């Protein structure tokens, strides 16, 4: 009991990191190779683009714009006129499940496997 009490901080840290690792593993396990980029504005799908084709997409919303760049199998936001610029600072995403979020504009850019969305399209 003395050991636990003395090292409770480290036990806590270990426990939280373990949970993080498990969650990370689970989300990686569920995700496959990303094939397409889905752009959601306010929860509504605004466009689906292939991750294989290099291109720039200007996402226009009522609240402002985000410039999405797809390049070498990666997607990132190069420019945005939002207040916090969090989306611009977000590292490029390249694997399924990866996402870039712009809260001020309510824009979500998400990578998904191509097969998954096909089943979605059927079930929808």
């Amino acid at each position: 009991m003395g050991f636990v009490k003395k090292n409770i901080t480290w036990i806590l840290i270990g426990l939280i990191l373990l949970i993080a690792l498990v969650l990370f593993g689970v989300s990686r396990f569920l995700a496959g190779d990303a094939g397409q980029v889905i752009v959601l504005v306010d929860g509504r799908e605004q466009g689906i683009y292939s991750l294989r084709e290099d291109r720039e997409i200007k996402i226009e919303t009522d609240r402002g714009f985000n410039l999405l760049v797809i390049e070498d199998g990666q997607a990132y936001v190069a420019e945005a006129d939002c207040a916090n610029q969090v989306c611009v600072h977000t590292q490029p995403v390249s694997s399924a499940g990866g996402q870039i979020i712009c809260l001020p504009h309510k824009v979500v850019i998400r990578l998904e496997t191509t097969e998954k969305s096909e089943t979605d399209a059927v079930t929808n």
Partner: protein
Amino acid sequence: MQSRTKKTAVLGLFIALSLIFSYIESVIPVPLIVPGAKLGLPNTLILLVLYTYGIREALAVNGARILLSGFLFGNLFSILYSFAGAAVSFVAMLLAKRAKIFPMKAVSILGGVFHNVGQIVVAAFLVSGVSVMAYLPLLLVAGVVTGLCNGILAEMIYKRGIL
């Protein structure tokens, strides 16, 4: 024994200092791996007030900080986000402190972790399409790191007994 006047002055100072910390945080982007993650410097102060004075005082400083920094450096939405994070974090720290088995460091870590959990959950509610699962692992790690740093800092200050 502390006089009311001293307490009022100290709490005022804490609010001012937490505003400065909030400002510093809003200026320095933390482009680490986790977008939106913050250092949580103001939490050091909240922790100190909580240990030195109590729940009511910590709540007052926290509430004043969120409202003032929100209106000064943010907008209604960022107030909502910081309120959600702060509320969840505060409850977590309160319970952890009440449990009496955690040292200040651990209380701070729990505060940092639950702050991030609260914010991502609110983000998922407000902006549909945000997948919590993808971000949570990174946010947990970020919460542990910042919480530990702030906790060590708060512990050092608290043990000096200068308040």
